[in-house]
Structures are given as C-alpha cells and as structure tokens.
C-alpha cells in the first residue's frame, strides 16, 4: 500500500526533520508510530499528506507503486490518503455537512466522476454519524468551531468514514479525549478497518493502542525509525519511557 524508502525532509528554512525513514505498509495492516515530542511524528504525517511547508530532499514515497512526491495534497486525497489532524482547523460559516458534501463532490469532479446523488449522500451521512454517535444537530454546526477536543476528533473520524480512504493516518487522535470519547473513536476506526485499507496511528501514549490494536509498532527518534516490533513494544515503551530508546540509540 504505502512504501517509504530512505525519506528525508526538511522545513522551508532548511531544518532537517526526517532523516531516512523506511516503512512498508501492506493492505489490511495497522501500524503505530510512537516517539517522544519532536521526533518527527507529525512531520511524517504532513509529508505523506502533501504539506508544502516541507521539502522532500531524498528518498521515495509510493502509494500502490505510484510516486506521490510530485502530487498535491488534494491529488493524494483523491488517490485515497487521509490525514486526521492533531489540531483540526476551525472554519466558521461552513457546516460539517456542507463541508463533507463539498469534499466528496469536488473530489469526484476532479476525478471526472458524477456528483454523489443527494439522497445517497444524506443516507451515508446519517449512517456514519450514527456509527460515531454523532447527533444530527452537530452536523449543521460550523466546522470545528467551538467544538470540544472530543468533538473535533470524532468529526475527523466521521470525515474518514465518509471519504473511505485507502490509507488513513491518525495523528494524535487520542489527545484531548476522555476515555468514553476514546472508545467511541476507536470503535469507529475499528469498524472502518478492512483487508483493503491500511491505518497508521501516530501516538505519544500506549493508551489508544489498547483499543486500536496495531499489527506493528515503530519508534521514531530524531527523524528515523530506530526500533520496530509488535504491540508488545508499545507496552514496553509505556513501562520504560523513551529515555531507554534514547540511550540505546546513543550506544
């Protein structure tokens, strides 16, 4: 699904953030990427999603064999990449419903597909909202404006459910969630798991991984993946903290 080889990326100012990432994600897999603050987790997700604030200086980024590096963020979205934001942006004046309709239909148009018929759209919206325990009143509110942390994250997963991506990157989806909201979000994500798509969970803490159980866990440090393992690695990190990794790397 997603193949990353020796990926180097830096900011516009030339600050190197990613220093040779290798990652191979196959359909049906869930990968967790963990690491201390400043290790490059969010940058990795931004670079994969096509944020122009970062420049790829070396390496390759392929989705199903297709080179993504020259594609815009929207072209990557059209090919099935989705990024759930750590801090979703507030857009006053655009309702959740209007936004998701616009997202789906402009995407379809850009791919020379017909717009989704509105009854089909409404049905899908209702269905996915129900799955995530979202009140229909919520859908007519301005996108993310005045939403609680939990509402923002639930709304991100709602968008994921509507857009049905092939590769979803969930960036710190657990931050700002209480345990009940966390369960709802995790349940939503688990429902969306299939053998045809893949999910990358970026998290600082192990807690989320109790609910979204990963096939692989990677530890990111100083812009590189320094350790990979199965879900037990997450538990080990939780118990020992990141200093242990740091010492190991320095050795």
């Amino acid at each position, binding site marked *: 699904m997603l193949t990353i080889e020796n990926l180097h990326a830096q900011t516009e100012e030339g600050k190197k953030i990613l220093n040779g990432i290798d990652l191979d994600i196959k359909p049906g897999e869930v990968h967790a990427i963990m690491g201390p603050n400043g290790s490059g987790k969010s940058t990795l997700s931004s670079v994969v999603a096509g944020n122009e604030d970062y420049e790829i200086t070396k390496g390759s980024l392929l989705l199903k064999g297709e080179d993504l590096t020259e594609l815009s963020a929207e072209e990557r979205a059209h090919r099935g990449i989705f990024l759930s934001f750590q801090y979703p*942006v507030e*857009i006053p004046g655009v309702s959740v419903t209007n936004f998701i309709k616009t997202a789906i239909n402009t*995407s379809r148009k850009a791919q020379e597909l017909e717009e989704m018929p509105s009854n089909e759209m409404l049905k899908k919206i209702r269905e996915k909202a129900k799955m995530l325990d979202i009140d229909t009143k919520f859908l007519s509110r301005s996108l993310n404006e005045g939403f609680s942390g939990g509402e923002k994250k639930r709304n991100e997963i709602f968008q994921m459910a509507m857009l049905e991506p092939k590769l979803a990157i969930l960036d710190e989806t657990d931050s700002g969630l209480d345990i009940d909201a966390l369960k709802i979000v995790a349940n939503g994500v688990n429902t969306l798991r299939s053998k045809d798509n893949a999910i990358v969970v970026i998290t600082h803490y192990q807690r989320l991984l109790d609910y979204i159980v990963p096939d692989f866990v990677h530890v990111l440090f100083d812009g590189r993946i320094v350790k990979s393992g199965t879900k037990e690695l997450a538990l080990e990190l939780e118990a020992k903290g990141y200093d242990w990794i740091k010492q190991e790397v320095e050795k």
Partner: protein
Amino acid sequence: MELKDKLLNSYLAFQEDYALREELHQTRLDALKVFEAQGFPTKRQEAWKYTSLAQLLQKDYSLFPKTSATSELRGVKPYFLADVDTYKIVFIDGVYSPFLSDTTHDGIDACLMSAALTKPKYRKIVETYFNKVVDPTESLTALNTSYAKEGAYIYIPKNTVAQKPIEIIHFATGNETAIWLQPRNLIVADQNAQVQIIERHQSLKAHEVVTNSVTEIYAHREAFVDYYKLQNDLDTAALIDNTYITQETQSHVSVHTFSFGGKLTRNNLNFKHKGSHLNSTLNGVTILEGNQHVDHYTLVHHSQPNCESHQDYKGVFSGRSHGVFNGKIYVDEIAQKTNAFQQNNNILLDDKTTVNTKPQLEIFADDVKCSHGCTVGQLDEEALFYLRTRGIPKKEAKALLTYAFANNVLESVQLPALKRRINGVIASKLGVNLGFNL
C-alpha cells in the same frame, strides 16, 4: 471645457427644461453654489486621501440622458431578483422606464422622485425631508442636489409593512459613449413602518458611466429599514454613492453594501441619530480583482444616549485591486451608554493589492462601550492544507475559506432570494462552481 465648468454652465439649460416651485428651485441653486465654491474633491482632502477622481473627470460626459432609450426586458431580466415578487423602480440612462417598473400607491408609495418633486400631494413630505437628511455642504452631494430630478421616492406610512421588497435599478445602456448620471432617492419610513430595499447600478455594455448618487433615508420611531446595495457593475463604471440616514427613537436601519464590480466605487454612508435606543447596522462584503478600487467611508454620529451601532466590513482583494475602509464614529458627550462596534477585516490574495484601513473614534462621553478592530492578512495556510487533504482542490478550497471569511455578513442578509444571488455572484467571482447553500 472642464467637467466642473460644463456642469455649472449646463445648469441654466437644465433648469429651464424643468420647472419647479420657487423654494425647490432655490435649494438647487444654493446647492450649485456650494459645488461651485468647492468643486470636486481631491486627494489633498483627508476624506479623499486614498481615492482619486482625477482620471474620471478628464472625460467628456453627456449630462442629459436621451429620453428615447429603451431596453427589452430580455436583456435586463438577469439583474432583477429571481424567485421573489418585488416592486421595481427602474431607470434607463437616468430616465424612468414604465415598461420595466412595477411601482405602487397601494398602501405605500414606491414611485418616482420627479413626481414627488412636482405634484402637490407629495409637497409636505418633500418640504419636510428633501435635502434635510443630507449634509448640504458636501460638494458631490450638493452637485447631485442641484441636478436632482429623478430617482426613487418611497414613503411607508405609519404602522405599515411594505408587502414586497422594493428594487431600485439604474441601467446604463451605453447608447452614449460617456454618461454622467445623478439619481436622487428619498425614502421615508414613518412610525413603526417596515421596508426592505435593494439598489443596484448596472451597465448593459462596456462604456464610461459615472453615477453620483444621493439617497436620503429617514426612519421614524420604531421603523425598520433594511437596505441592500449590490454593486457588481462592469469595470468601465464608476459609482459615487452618498447615502444619508437619520433615525429616531427605537428605529432599526441596516445597510449592507456588497461591492464586487465597477472600476471605482466610493460609498459614503452617514448615520445621524435623533432619538435613543435605536440601532444602526453597517455591513459590507468587498471582493475585488484586477484594477478595481472601492472606498468605504462611513460615519456614525452618536448624538443621543442608549444607541447601538454595528459595523462589519470584510474585504478580499486580488490582482492590483485597492480597498479603502475609513470608519468614523463620533460619540457626543450626551450620548452615554452608547454601544458602538466596528470591525474591518481584509484578506490579500496577491502581492500587488493594497488596503488602507482607518478606524477613527472620537468619544466625548465617559460611560460607553466602543470597540474597533481591523486586520489585514492572508488566507490561513493551515486551513487551506486541511481542506486540500480532504480532496478539495486549491481553487475551491480558497473559495470556501473566502466564503467562510465573509459568512457572518452574508448570514445577516434577511432576504433569501438576495442571499442566493449574492452567493452565486461570489462563486462566479471566485471562479468556482460551489453551492455554498447546500
């Protein structure tokens, strides 16, 4: 001949052509003297610092419109509001078009200024309000007064609600290569009366047209006046709009100005308070491109206690366009408990655009709530990225953010048909095909 001289000299021919009773004649003559003494404003004057009329004044304009101009309904229909029944007062090159209009005397008067100025039955209203709401010392207003002849006359009697919105539309045909128009509107809403009005100026083909328009609005106690200016003219047209409003106790007057077209637009908007517990609203959305220039010059004079005024102007600029916002708020010593709010936010989409924004507050009362804020910025890159990761292409994403930026002003439009029209204009202005009202 210089335009000023032409205007002064032509007046003799104009007054002979148009017989008026003595006192109106004197009003016009006095006004002409004001214009003669002051002439056209220049950039040396503080109020015109950012807007130059110099280029406009070099052309030779036809001052007296031909009376033969007619327009087929087909060509002009798109400029009327769709899906809503309205009264219409329509002018073609300054001349009333009975064919395109739908005036009324049924319960309210929505008719012609020329009738109001000459017919005895309107005499009392004209004597009470005509040229009484304006600032007679302002040069361009005085110029308009001296040539005041035609425009819309609207009178809503006590306790009456106008059953339909009223459209005032001025078409310029382009039959003359260059034309100078000076419409004059008078709107009086008597006690507890309500009315919605939409005004637009529209060229039917590219030609030099300058409109120096004056509108007087008088809102009595508890009256509601909801006024919309839709400015989306061709980029050969210039508009100087002078709108004066006087309000009495507990009245509500709101003026929305949507500036999307025209090469040069100056909106002078003046609110005067003659009562307490009243509410003035001034909202605007400006979206410009190319070499367009729009200057909003607002003045709210709080001279009575317990009144509120709200100003919210949003501007989006691309190309080499130039936007100006100058908002003056005066609060007299007597005007305690005033609540005055002013906001002007601008987004620059290109490097070569210019915005000058200048709030001016002069407060002499000590128990008031006054706030103002202005911002000049760009579209939020983070928000743009967010939309694009959802598959929304860059152009559409920018349009959506622009629309969102202007949304709180659009939300306050009380006429659904007009809101749909404006949303459509914004979408086409931004070059996208998005239904914002999904």
